[in-house]
C-alpha cells in the first residue's frame, strides 16, 4: 500500500504540491483528477522518485522511500506519449525491465504481455512504425512486464484522438482489473478518471480538495470550482425535502441528496425538453448544435434574461419557444455554504 503524508514539492518558490495526503490500497486504482497545472503530475513524479520532496513522506507498506532511488522502487511508469526506446523493437522494449531485473523466461513473459494488451505477434515490429494507440499499449506492456508493485500512469490516453481514447480507456480499465494492478492514474479528463478508477482524488492548486468513489465525486463535488471542472455551468439555490429538490426551475427527485438548504449544480444535460412540449419553465431557443450523441441547445428563459444550456435528442428550430424540465442525471448537489469563498 502506498501512503503519502504531508508531501510538498517545490518549483523554486512555488509549491507545486502542497502538503498532500493520499493513500492507494493494494489492488486499488486511484485517479488524480484536476486541471493542468494543479500539481497532479508532479505528485506522481514525486512518488516515482523523479522529483525531490521538500517535505513529507512517501511510504510503501512500512518502508520510507526517501532514500530509495527511482530504479529500486519497483514502480512502473507510463508517460503520456509512450516514450518507447526507439533503438529497440517492441519485444526489446517490453523485455527491458525484465532484463534489468535479470528475470528468466523473458520471451514467454513478453508474449504474455503483448497478448494481454492485444498486440500478440508484434514482437519484431519497430516502435517507430506503431500507431499512437499501439505505442501506448506497448508502453503499458513494458511497464507491467516486471510486475511492478505500483503502476503510475501519467495522462496515459491524452495524446490519442477521442474515439481511440474512449476505446482504450475501457480496455485499460479491464486490463488493470485482470492484472490486479495497484495504480495511480493522473488525468485531466473526468470521463477517463471515472472509467479507470475505484477512487478519485480531485486536485487543485497543489492540494487534494476531495477524495471519494467516482459516483460521489460526480454527484457531490465539494465546491463550485470542482463542480465547474466536472461540467456544471449553472448554480441554483435549492431546498431538499424527502428526497426531492426544489429550485426556481422546478422540482426533481434526488433520493441521494441530503436534506436541507443546498446549491444545485446543473450540467447541460440537467435540462431537457418536456415530452409534450408543455409545462416547466419556458424560453426562446437561441441555438441548436449537433454534438456526437445529442443536440446541445441554448435557451433564453422567459422573465429573466438568463441563458441556459439544455440537451435534446433531435435538432430544434432556433427561434421556437421551448419548455424545459429538470433531469436528475445532470445534477450535482453542493453544500449551500460551499458556494461562498470560491
Amino acid at each position, binding site marked *: 500500500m502506498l501512503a503519502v503524508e504531508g508531501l510538498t514539492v517545490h518549483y523554486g518558490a512555488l509549491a507545486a504540491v502542497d502538503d498532500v495526503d493520499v493513500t492507494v490500497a493494494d489492488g486499488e486504482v486511484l485517479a488524480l483528477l484536476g486541471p493542468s497545472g494543479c500539481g497532479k503530475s508532479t505528485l506522481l513524479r514525486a512518488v*516515482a522518485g*523523479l522529483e525531490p520532496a521538500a517535505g513529507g513522506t512517501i511510504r510503501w507498506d512500512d518502508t520510507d522511500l526517501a532514500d530509495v532511488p527511482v530504479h529500486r522502487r519497483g514502480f512502473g511508469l507510463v*508517460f503520456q506519449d509512450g516514450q518507447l526506446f526507439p533503438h529497440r523493437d517492441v519485444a526489446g522494449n517490453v523485455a*527491458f525491465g525484465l532484463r*534489468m531485473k535479470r528475470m528468466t523466461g523473458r520471451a514467454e513473459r513478453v508474449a504474455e504481455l503483448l497478448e494481454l494488451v492485444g498486440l500478440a505477434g508484434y514482437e519484431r515490429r519497430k516502435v517507430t512504425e506503431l500507431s499512437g494507440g499501439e505505442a501506448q499499449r506497448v508502453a503499458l506492456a513494458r511497464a507491467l512486464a516486471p510486475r511492478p508493485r505500483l503502476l503510475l500512469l501519467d495522462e496515459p490516453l491524452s495524446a490519442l484522438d477521442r474515439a481511440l481514447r474512449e476505446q482504450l480507456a475501457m480496455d485499460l480499465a479491464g486490463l488493470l482489473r485482470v492484472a490486479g494492478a495497484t495504480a495511480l492514474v493522473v488525468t485531466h479528463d473526468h470521463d477517463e478518471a471515472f472509467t479507470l478508477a475505484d477512487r478519485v482524488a480531485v486536485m487543485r492548486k497543489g492540494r487534494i480538495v476531495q477524495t471519494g468513489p467516482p459516483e460521489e465525486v460526480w454527484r457531490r463535488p465539494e465546491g463550485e470550482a470542482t463542480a465547474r471542472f466536472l461540467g456544471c455551468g449553472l448554480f441554483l439555490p435549492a431546498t431538499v425535502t424527502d428526497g426531492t429538490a426544489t429550485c426556481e426551475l422546478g422540482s426533481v427527485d434526488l433520493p441521494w441528496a441530503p436534506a436541507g438548504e443546498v446549491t444545485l449544480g446543473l450540467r447541460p444535460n440537467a435540462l431537457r425538453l418536456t415530452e409534450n412540449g408543455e409545462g416547466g419553465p419556458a424560453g426562446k431557443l437561441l441555438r441548436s448544435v449537433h454534438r456526437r450523441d445529442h443536440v446541445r441547445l441554448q435557451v433564453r428563459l422567459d422573465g429573466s434574461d438568463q441563458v441556459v444550456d439544455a440537451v435534446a435528442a433531435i435538432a430544434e428550430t432556433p427561434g421556437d419557444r421551448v419548455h424545459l424540465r429538470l433531469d436528475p442525471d445532470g445534477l450535482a448537489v453542493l453544500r449551500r455554504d460551499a458556494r461562498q469563498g470560491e
Partner: protein
Amino acid sequence: MARDRAGLRTSPRGLALIALVPLGFLAVFFVWPVVAILRLGLREGGVLDTLASPDVWQLVGFTVAQAAGATAVSIVAGLPVAFLLARTRLPGLGLVRVIILVPFVLPSVVVGLAFRALLPDGGVWAIILANASFNVAVVARTVAGLWTHLDRRAEDAARALGASRPRTFTGVTLPALAPAIGSAAAVVFLFCATSFGVVLILGGARLKTLETEIYLRTVELLDLSGAAALSLLQLGAVVAALSIGAVMRRRRETALRLRGQAESARRPAGGEWWVVAAAFAVVVALLVPVATLVARSFQSGLDGYRALTGIGYEGSLDISGFDAARNSLAAATDATLIAVTLGTMASVVLVSLARNRVRYVEVVDTAFMLPLGVSAVTVGFGYLITLDLLPGDLRTSAALVPLAQALVVTPLVIRIMLPVLRSIDERLRQAAATLGAGPWRVWREVDVPMAGRSLGTAAAFGFVVALGEFGATSFLARPDTATLPVAIARLVSRPGELNNEMAYAACTLLIVVTVAVVAVVERVRVPVGEF
C-alpha cells in the same frame, strides 16, 4: 510537462571523476603551455610597446577585415545551399552535402595551394575566397539544421496575407533563422580570423594576420614578448566571439524545441529555382579549386605520384612522401582516439550538468571550445617550454603531434556529440530508470545506443580534421615525423618543379582520403549536430 527535472542523478562524485580527465588534459596540454608563453612574453616586457605600435593595429585591422569579408562571403554563399538542403527535394542532394564538406575538412595547406593554382597573383581576394570556401559548409549545415525544423506554415501565412516571396523571406524566414546564422557567423569568423595555412601560403610576406605574425615572431624573429602580446590580443577576441556564439546557440536550442515535425522539403517552385541555381553555382565554385588541384597533379602524367616514393628535389624532405602519408595516418588515428575519448567524456559531463540544471554550463562549454581559437603556434611553442617538466620528456616524443591534434579535434567531437545527447528526451531515461536501470545503466541502455552513430560521425570528422591539421603539427613535428600537410608546405616552399608536382600529388591523395571518409560519414549521418 515542461518542468522535467533531473530525477536520476548521475552521482556527483562519478561525474567529477569523468570531468577530471578532459579538464586535466585541457589544463596540461592547453592552459599551462599557453599561460607559460604569455608569462614568458610578459616577463620580457615590451608588451605595451608592441600594443602601442601602429603596425600591430594595422595587423589587427587586416585580420578582422579579411575574417569579416570571408564570413560575409560564406554567409551569402551558404544561405542558398542551406535552402537547397533544407527546403527542397531534388536528386543529388546527398552528393551536395559531401561536396560542400570537402573544403571544410581539407588541410588548410591544400586549400591554400588550390587557390594559388587558381589565382597565381594571390592577394586579399584569394585569402578571402579561400577562407570562405572552407566555411560555406559550416554556414550551410548550421542554417539548414534550423531551417529543416522551421514550421513552413508561418511563411505560408505571410504569403496568404499578400507578402511576396522576397518579402516573406526577409520578414519571416530570415528573422527565424537569425540565431543559426549568428551562431554560424561567430564560428566562421573565428575560423577565418585564426586561419593559418591559407594565409601563410597565399599571403606570402606581404599579407599577414595575427596568426601568421605570431608564427613569424616566435619562430623566425624570436620576439617572444611581441608574440605574447599578439596572443593576448587574439585570445581576447576569441573569447568574445565564442561567447557570442554560445549565446546564439542557447537561443537556437530554445527555438528547436518548438519545431514542427512536418516535413518541410518539397520540389522548388517558381522563383525558388533561381535560389536553387545559385546554390548549385556555389557548389560548382567550391569544386573548381579542388578540381584545379587534381588536374595540376596529372599535368606531367604520373611524375608527381612517382616522386612521392622519394624525398623531393635535392632532398627537400627528410623522409619520402609515402612515409609522410604513413605518419599522417598514424598521428590522425591516435589523435582521433584521444579526442573521441576526451570529447565524449566532456559531452557526458556537460549534458549531465545541463540535465541537473547547473547554471553557467555555457562557460564550461566555451572553455572546451577555446583551443579552436588560440593560435596553434602559441600552443606548440608553449609545449616546448613546459612539457620538459613532465616525466618522460614529451618534447622529443612522437606522441606530441597526436596530442596537439587531439586538442584541435576534441572541440569538434563535443560540437557533434553534445546536441545529440541533449536531444535525448529526459523522460526516455526516466522510463528506463523506473524499469530498474540505475544511473550508469541508463547511460548504457539509452544514451550510448542513441548517440552511438554520431560517435562514428564524430570520429570520422575528427580523423579528417586531424589528418589536415597544419598549424600545431608544423611546429611540433620533427623532420622524420613530418605529416603529409607539413611535407606539402615544405615542398612548395622549396624551388624545383618536381617539388610542386609532388605537392599536388600529395594534395590529391589527401583529397581522396577525405572524400572517402566524408562520403561514408554521410551514409550514416544522424540529422542532429552542428557539422
